């Protein structure tokens, strides 16, 4: 500082005192908040494992039919209805963020605890080669997304030590892991859960009306295999073949507007047909076909529309598809 900004002794003392209080209280609050939040996160992690993780190995082993896939498969196939109509025991393993790698890793763990299922229904997404399995679902299996090795961390601590903030703040180091856990926590909070999924499904029908302009929508093109996780595909199908599992690759229906918004439907079907032909135990069923499923009936869909990448069936749609699927399963 030059002479024009000379500071009195009193001011300097005040500045130093204020600075010390600021730094001291920051360090104290930083450490104590980090401690509390870490505890919250690990408790939540344990509760989640107890709620979701243990089910994989204890409640639903030795089933006849295993349903796999992402949220579209979860919405499209009703396990109770399928079980009712076929007499098979059914486990629904499909849910959001579960793509090829998750399915493969899950199945490898599942078969260590259970006899292989007779049938696997794998709901296919045209975008599945462009996505990676979610960190949350992978960590539930004990895998980190980056290394592909078990992490042993229920609550990951990011390597923030390279930045200045990461060195001085414990909160900064746990931030990434905390936010993932926290948003997982708030997103899973659903006061209506348990009042049956059917009610939620039913309220969703008809949302697609009037969405997007049919004359001015964008066409989407999606990655073909191997894409992000395609390297696991053949290992997975080979493992299923060795276990004697009959695999139904199910191309799930899309609302007509969404269907039209994809530029590579035919190519996509050809790819899967080529893959299916390599294995005797694999059969491809295309429900994303106007002749096979009423894609234009908005009352069967939860969402979607012109220019939309993805659409999900609603409960009515799921019942219709499950009925058709059950007929195929019964027919062998």
């Amino acid at each position: 500082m030059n002479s024009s900004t000379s500071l009195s002794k009193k001011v300097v003392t005040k500045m130093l005192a204020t600075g010390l209080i600021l730094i001291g209280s920051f360090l104290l609050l930083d450490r104590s908040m980090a401690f509390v939040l870490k505890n919250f996160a690990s408790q939540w992690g344990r509760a989640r494992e107890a709620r979701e993780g243990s089910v994989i190995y204890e409640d639903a082993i030795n089933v006849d039919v295993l349903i796999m896939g992402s949220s579209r498969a979860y919405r499209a196939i009703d396990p109770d209805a399928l079980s009712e109509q076929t007499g098979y025991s059914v486990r629904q393993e499909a849910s959001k963020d579960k793509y090829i790698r998750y399915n493969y890793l899950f199945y490898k763990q599942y078969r260590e605890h259970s006899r292989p299922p007779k049938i696997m229904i794998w709901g296919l997404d045209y975008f599945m080669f462009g996505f990676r399995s979610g960190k949350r679902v992978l960590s539930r299996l004990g895998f980190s997304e980056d290394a592909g090795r078990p992490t042993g961390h229920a609550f990951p601590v990011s390597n923030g030590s390279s930045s200045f903030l990461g060195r001085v703040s414990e909160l900064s180091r746990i931030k990434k892991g905390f936010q993932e856990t926290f948003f997982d926590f708030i997103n899973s909070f659903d006061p209506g859960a348990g009042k049956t999924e059917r009610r939620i499904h039913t309220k969703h029908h008809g949302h697609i009306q009037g969405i997007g302009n049919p004359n001015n929508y964008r066409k989407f093109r999606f990655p073909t295999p191997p894409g992000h996780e395609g390297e696991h595909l053949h290992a997975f199908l080979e493992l299923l073949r060795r276990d004697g599992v009959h695999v139904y690759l199910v191309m799930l229906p899309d609302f007509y507007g969404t269907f039209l918004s994809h530029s590579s439907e035919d190519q996509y079907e050809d790819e899967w047909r080529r893959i299916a032909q390599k294995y005797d135990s694999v059969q491809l069923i295309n429900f994303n076909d106007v002749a096979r499923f009423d894609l234009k009936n908005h009352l069967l869909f939860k969402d979607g529309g012109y220019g939309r990448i993805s659409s999900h069936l609603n409960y009515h749609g799921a019942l219709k598809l499950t009925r058709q699927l059950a007929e195929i399963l019964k027919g062998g």
Partner: protein
Amino acid sequence: MVYFSMIFADSLFFPFFAVVFSLHFFLPRRFRWIALLIASHLFYGYIEVGFSVCLFVITVFVYLAGLWIGKSRIRRKWVLLAGLALPLGALIYFKYTNFLLAALRDVFHPAPGLIPPHSFSIVMPVGISFYVFKAISYLLDVYHGKMQAEKHFGYFALYISFFPQLLAGPIERSTAFLPELKKGGSFRLDHFSTGLKLFIWGLFKKLVVADNLARFVGQAFSETGSQAGFNLLLGAIFFSFQIYCDFSGYSDMAIGLGRMLGYQTHINFNYPYFSKNIGEFWSRWHISLSFWLRDYLFLPLAYSYMRRMEKFARWPLKLESQAYIWATMVTMLLAGLWHGANWTFVIWGGLIGIFLVLSFLTKKSRKSMVKALWRNKAKPALDAFRIVHTFLMITLAWIFFRAESVADALTYISRISLRMESRGMGGIIFYSVIVLVFILAEKMMKDFRPGNWLSRIPSPVRVAGYAFVVCIIIIFGADDSNEFLYFSF
């Protein structure tokens, strides 16, 4: 477009500012402008060197034009117009070329050969709307004799490019800010502490409130079809807070940095969502822009209308009212266009204009109605009603501001309802808590007076409070921080 990496919320900015701060106070006052000018061009050039060149060319041109206007005694209007040509031309070229071409193509079907059938790929220098408005106000002030043309190129260049204000304002007037820059900025503990507090509060607004709400808002506006009606209502309300916290957060940080360096600037937002009518809102929102528009557009338009339309003074409306309506609508439509080259912004401006006009025309009748209906009733309840009413009107206009197209905005509005679903309730509760805590904090700050309970909190506790805010920013600040919304304007 994200092409910068040294914005205020970025970790790279802190060492940059520390160096600038030290250098600034190390140098004698008369040389401090050099450090700040170099820092400003480094800051801007770091985004894109071409932007810094564009800024420099406009600065030199306006500087020379200012000197010319100051000296000329004849045909000053023409000199002024010549001076405005480059900054205005640059703004129109970078911001509106494609919009104007599209509008022309819409008007002429089929488009004649002169109108290109495609859009051009034009990269708009970030913040150009702000520094061009600074340049225009400077030239107009010199022309109207409100100030002498600045002879010192360094101070003038610094006025245009002062890095805290460069990307998103505030649009400081040369009459106030040039003398401030010439003082050289002296270090004062109270200024430094106020600046630091403002900066931290701005960071909180941006990273904790705006960027977290952006997740919910983004989903509501991009997946309108699959959202429950109540979520859309919340999405619109949350967007009102998102844009406020985003923009005022930037302004607070900019003003805070200026204060830390010893330069006083005016506030840019004065608790706008506590306004009781739309006129009050507009005078509290983006104050530097609304006052700029008032002084350089609204008032000249209104006065010229009154001069030219004197013969229509006997219309059902008084001449002053006619002038108000005309000037308000033109100003607000142009204000909308200033925000972006899209019809959604024009409609946003038009809606605010209509609200202002309606508020103006019904002022007396509303007053008498309130008198009749609200006699002997609690004033706070009336105030709360007026605040909520004003907020909802603004929120309606923000839907157009946020939507991609007018059709999307209309679809969004038509789907709003009170229909709720339990799925996603956790997110709704979390984002609502953020908003409520923010409103409470704003209310406390608004009501802060020397001597009230807040000011009596011991200083160490207050300092610890700021440390707590920093901890909250670290842990709850959105990791995927969005660029500031107003950078695109």
